[in-house]
């Protein structure tokens, strides 16, 4: 009689399962170390020296951010340009910027932002994605949202909207008033500007590139 096949042997499969699970876990841990080093937040020095980081330091709020096609990588990447005033200043220190970002990130969680919006594409789908919201033409100088709030800069317009979203109905699906204070709103805008500078491997594609989208219907 032929030998019993290894393929129908429980021990073979148990050992294989153990090996595969263990090794896949080790690979994941290794990859996690590799990735963690790459996605740690950069510093002010990195920005000044033009060192590209996947996640730039908080002082990126002192600079102009654009979203441009990178020929080598084949998709759009955020580009940190020259200085740009943010709430009237372009010399926020590392500590000040970090504190604003901290408050904004805390606020984004305390107000449950991601249970309506998506951040980096993750969250709920009841409201627009905020990954590159800072770069949205609607908030720009010619944008409908900035005009609606009556403010003259993007950051002030967003901050004003966040404090009184129920006064600026943009759609039947209105953002509710979340008791966001002025300080929190400034923090949230810093958080949004910082998020737009994160290198998301080209997500979302073509963001803000299509003209006429605002009244495109």
């Amino acid at each position, binding site marked *: 009689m032929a030998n019993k096949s290894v393929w129908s042997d429980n021990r073979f499969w*148990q050992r294989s399962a153990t090996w595969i699970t263990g090794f896949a876990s080790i690979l994941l841990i290794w990859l996690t170390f590799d990735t963690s080093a790459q996605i740690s937040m950069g510093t002010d020095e990195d920005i000044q020296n033009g060192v590209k980081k996947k996640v730039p330091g908080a002082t990126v709020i002192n600079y102009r951010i654009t979203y441009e096609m990178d020929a080598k990588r084949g998709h759009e990447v955020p580009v940190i340009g020259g200085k740009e005033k943010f709430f009237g200043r372009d010399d926020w220190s590392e500590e000040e910027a970090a504190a604003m970002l901290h*408050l904004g990130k805390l606020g984004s969680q305390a107000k449950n932002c991601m249970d309506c919006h998506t951040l980096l594409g993750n969250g709920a789908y*009841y409201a627009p994605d905020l*990954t590159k919201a800072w770069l949205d033409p609607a908030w720009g100088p010619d944008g409908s949202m900035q005009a609606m709030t009556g403010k003259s800069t993007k950051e002030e317009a967003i901050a004003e909207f966040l404090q009184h979203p129920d006064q600026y109905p943009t759609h039947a699906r209105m953002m*509710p008033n979340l008791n966001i204070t002025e300080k929190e709103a400034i923090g949230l805008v810093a958080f949004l500007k910082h998020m737009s500078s994160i290198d998301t491997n*080209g997500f*979302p*594609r073509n963001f803000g590139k*299509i003209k006429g*989208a605002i009244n495109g219907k």
Partner: protein
Amino acid sequence: MANNHLTSESKQLATWYLTFAAILFGAQLLFGLVAAIQYIVPGFLYGILDFSIARILHINALVVWMVFAMFGSVYWLLPDETGIETIGIKAGKLVYWIFVAAIVVVVLVYLFIQIGPASDATIWFITEGREYIEAPRWADLGIVVVALTFVANLFLTGIKGKQTGIVTVLMADMIAFAGLYLAGMFFTDNISVDQYWWWWVIHLWVEATWEVFVGAIAAYGLITMIGAHRKVVEMWLWIEVAMLFGSGILGLGHHYFWIGTPEYWWEIGALFSALEPLPLVAMFVHVLYDWGKTQGAQDANGDKNSVITNKPAFTWFVLNAFGNFLGAGIWGFFHTLPQVNLYTHGTQFTSAHGHLAFFGAYATILVGVMYLAVQGKNGIKVMKNTKTSIWAVSMISGGVMGMTVSLTIAGYVQVLVSRAQMGATWAGYFDGQNGLWFTQAMDWRLILGIVTFIGFLLLAKDLLTTGKDPVHER
């Protein structure tokens, strides 16, 4: 308790867990309906129970009822598998009440306090604001205590009693399941790091440890319900563990395409997660194969009766085998490749997949275990389907499938209009949302959501009454 046929304390405790799970299942559906209505009538409960709050309750109730039912399932099968009474059952009962109390407090805080100022206190006491695991930090710590007690009970019992393949798999799986929760318990200003670890909890739960748990429960179900051969079933189980963990652990990479992580995740995530449907196909084949095999063997002996000793539970188990493959496998594969995901990420597509996957992979089998518990508690030898149980399973599965199709259509509109055509801006987003196909899909979603909810009411009625029904063989 009168008319209670359970002699095992572990099984008693299991029925507690399963009962509370069923209640939370109802709550999940109810808040899902609120959120579905808000898509159509945005003013509904505006400023009182906004979409964000309805959705938190919808998805948190989902996660918690499943965790409850999973704990209950393990307490149910432990005495059968190990041959001894579960060790530490008193502690198990104590933490059950702690768990229930904590959940009631968390739900009340979600409902009535909802949000807080941007401060650590909010993170500790109101909400952590991270999808699926919004529970405030104090509750996190509570969950860790509860999970550790559960894992300790499982390990002590598993080590002392008979250690079957199913128990061995569950022991390894449940400790990973509990341990992974720790990855979601810290705060960082870096949202890329935040989401990196957040996915460790979410993905490694639902696409790795929970799936292996389902494999183990399905194995137990096949042995108890149709008398499948343990050696065959356990061999399948080990194959499934190898395939599920082999594809699922590194399949985590498909969440690392766009969150600021390096580009090499495109390849790792795409190709490992592309294999994730394979074990799900295997599970489906395995359940049907074992069913046919045992039935065929019995037929050959001239016995024309069904081998199934619990028809409603087995219905849900078979539905699980297929639903897991369809919802997690097919709907997951649809958008797992980065070329596709670039446009589908963060759209209703994800939501469609989420609905069918959570239902097909988890809700089904856990409802099946609820029927097993009803059978055991009432001392029923062969449990039959009733009209109510058939209506319940048909309406729930039809409703969820219909919601999934609706959301998929809505997702297509978002992908084509908001993403591909309009470039994902605020204006582009609403152009997609106002599209006729999108709004009609949302109407259908609500209608089918109501069908699902009526199905749930029938299910609840059946679970409560079928035990006393004289149609069953005792």
